């Protein structure tokens, strides 16, 4: 592994971890502060000023920015499967922190999503690792 490849790899993993964690906890705080229903168009705005919702939105902004940063060098078809591990973490957060009842069908569906993600990740070597120093293919 060349130093350039190693640099790109660790940069990619750190950035991907930030993307996933910001997404999972952003969603958690959003749900935590959310009222049972948004009745009027105005409610969509005022809800943003609830403290938990505001924290969730802040984390989702971190998610958006870190994701844009990651996409500046990584393929979308690489970023999507790696960061979709967040779907699983969200289920655990829903179960343990929000006391949601998750049926066996829902767990099975989440496991299928994990299997799909693993399969996609085991596919061809992502173009991402080839970096920008080599030929653009």
């Amino acid at each position, binding site marked *: 592994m060349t130093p350039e490849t190693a640099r790109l790899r660790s940069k990619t993993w750190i950035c991907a971890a930030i993307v996933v964690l910001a997404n999972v906890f952003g969603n958690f705080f959003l749900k935590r502060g959310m009222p049972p229903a948004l009745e009027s168009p105005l409610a969509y705005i005022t809800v943003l000023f609830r403290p938990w919702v505001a924290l969730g939105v802040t984390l989702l902004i971190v998610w958006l920015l870190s994701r844009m940063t990651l996409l500046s*060098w990584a393929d*979308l078809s690489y970023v999507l499967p790696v960061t979709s591990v967040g779907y699983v973490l969200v289920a655990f*957060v829903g179960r343990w922190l929000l006391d949601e009842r998750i049926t066996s069908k*829902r767990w099975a569906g989440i496991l299928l999503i994990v299997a799909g993600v693993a*399969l996609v990740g085991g*596919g061809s070597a992502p173009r991402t690792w080839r970096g920008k120093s080599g030929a653009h293919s």
Partner: protein
Amino acid sequence: MKWLLIAIIVASTSVGEVLQAVGMRRHGEIRDFRPSALGRAASVLARNSVVIGSVVAMAVSFFAYLGLLAFTDLSFAVPVTAVTYVVETVLAKYVLKERVNGLRWAGAALVLCGVALVSL
């Protein structure tokens, strides 16, 4: 109402992410993480019409998602929107011209089945 919101979320997220990938690739790799350099990158990106389009699409998706999250479980709302992943793999292949092999298609199909189960 639930499925209408989900359709809006899936469509606007997929469009937004493809525009984001196009815009960021046009910008080039971000290598300098000093705050001043990031600020310069942000001000260049704020004038990139493709990036602006992606932000608008993401905003539509976000408010539709707020509406959905208000009356559904987090463990329903988040997995069900994973269907965007399948739409985006198709768009990555045909719009962004990225290479998508058989294993990736199989993975996308499994994700789709998983989403179907979650929504039962």
